[in-house]
């Protein structure tokens, strides 16, 4: 049986777009026909749940019952991927909690596939956050995400400073999310639908909507660029490594004969 994948999406400060990234991930896996579920830790009211209500639950990861809801069900959930949108500023705290309950040990032993999407902020404070992450992510797929969707500028770290923080991290992926036109961004927010639904001109009920073709085109183009980044870092392979895929194909081929 394929091991479950958990993707933590977090940031050291709010407003950097981690929920936006979580949304693109859910759309990405849906397009790949990979069942995914999400947990929104912005308890009691989640932002992620507004866009993906059918696959998202709002939880409080500081509470044991909700921890059980998330992690005790990894092995028996129909969803291959669990995306956790971590409340701003709590990424390190969350990883510490996961370490305490043995979750990171499970990842180290290969029972679970773990990825951390660390959405960077514009200041050098992010570098300190990266340094703090190093002890948690040694057995995880760690991705630094620069989100330009809001025209953010990022601190230009000089190579020496950059290397001094990164020397403890051996395998770090970098993902760049390009800018999306402000009006397109705003209209998707107003529509309160997944990006793919907006592109398909559907409302929250799945009925035809009346979204601007131009704005849908901008979102489609932007989403393709984001997914291109996910493809580039082989994100799908985290969920279904090539060996597993080949085995599955072989089994399916034998079963059909």
């Amino acid at each position: 049986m394929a091991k479950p994948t958990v993707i933590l999406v977090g940031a050291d400060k709010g407003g950097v777009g981690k929920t936006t990234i979580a949304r693109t991930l859910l759309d990405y896996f849906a397009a790949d026909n990979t069942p995914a579920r999400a947990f929104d830790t912005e308890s009691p009211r989640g932002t992620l749940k507004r866009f993906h209500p059918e696959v998202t639950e709002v939880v409080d990861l500081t509470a044991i019952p909700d921890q059980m809801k998330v992690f005790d069900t990894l092995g028996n959930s129909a969803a291959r991927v669990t995306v956790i949108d971590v409340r701003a500023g709590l990424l390190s705290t969350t990883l510490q909690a996961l370490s305490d309950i043995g979750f990171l040990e499970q990842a180290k032993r290969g029972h679970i596939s773990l990825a951390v999407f660390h959405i960077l902020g514009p200041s050098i404070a992010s570098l300190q956050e990266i340094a703090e992450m190093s002890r948690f992510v040694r057995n995880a797929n760690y991705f630094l995400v620069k989100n330009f969707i809001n025209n953010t500028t990022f601190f230009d770290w000089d190579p020496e400073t950059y290397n001094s923080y990164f020397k403890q991290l051996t395998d770090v992926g970098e993902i760049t999310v390009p800018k999306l036109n402000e009006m397109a961004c705003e209209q998707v927010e107003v529509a309160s639908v997944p990006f793919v639904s907006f592109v398909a001109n559907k409302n929250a009920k799945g009925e035809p909507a009346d979204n601007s073709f131009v704005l849908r085109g901008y979102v489609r183009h932007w989403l393709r660029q984001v997914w291109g980044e996910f493809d580039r870092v082989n994100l799908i392979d985290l969920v279904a490594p090539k060996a597993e895929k080949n085995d599955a194909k072989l089994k399916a081929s034998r079963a059909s004969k």
Partner: protein
Amino acid sequence: MSLRNSVIIVASPRPRVGKTLLARLLTDFHLHERRAVAAFDVNAGERTLAQFLPEQAMKSTIDDIKGQMALFDRLIAADGTDKIVDLGHASFESFFTLAAQIGFVEEARGRGIAAAVLFLITPDHASVEAYNGLQNRLPGAVLVPVHNEILGSAQVRHKYGLLGLGTVVVRLTQLAPGLRKYVETPPFSFSQPRLAGGAGAPDEVENELQHWLRRNYLELREIDLRILLRDLRSSIRL
């Protein structure tokens, strides 16, 4: 799916090659054929399409998102109207970059609208590159090379690799210099009863203008056939 309406973009990366004249003729051709038509003037400067045909053409811009929405959302509207775009040279690159990015041709075809580009061919390298580029950027569009005879010999077609491929180059026939003054002052429509204006102009002038107009309308029918043929080919493939 049969394409019932079309969007025709008149374009060239170079100025003063006859784009607005061609757009005017196209618009008036549609009126002559009693077909619903709306024209969009993406041009700056004087003697633009909107000035010649204020009732059929509206000024448009793609410089900001609102202008882009106002133009493109209207172009793909399945409202039973053919659309003509007079694309100024300054907007050539940004227009086609945006069109490719947002999937304009695919969206149009999905709504039963054919997208065609009438490209005024000139011998310069930049234009040749732009023409070849359009074939790659908008593979679903009907690309029609147009030669404006006032610019000189039609030998320019060899620079576009058009010789021997069966690609017909549509001609924009030249109007005698002495007759241009009758048609170059806006507002002016080729569908008006008398092209040479009110009393005073000799009948020979009017006859010459009408003869020139009919020759160009014959060429514009070639564009109609080109779009229809592309539609039939697509239907057969499907």
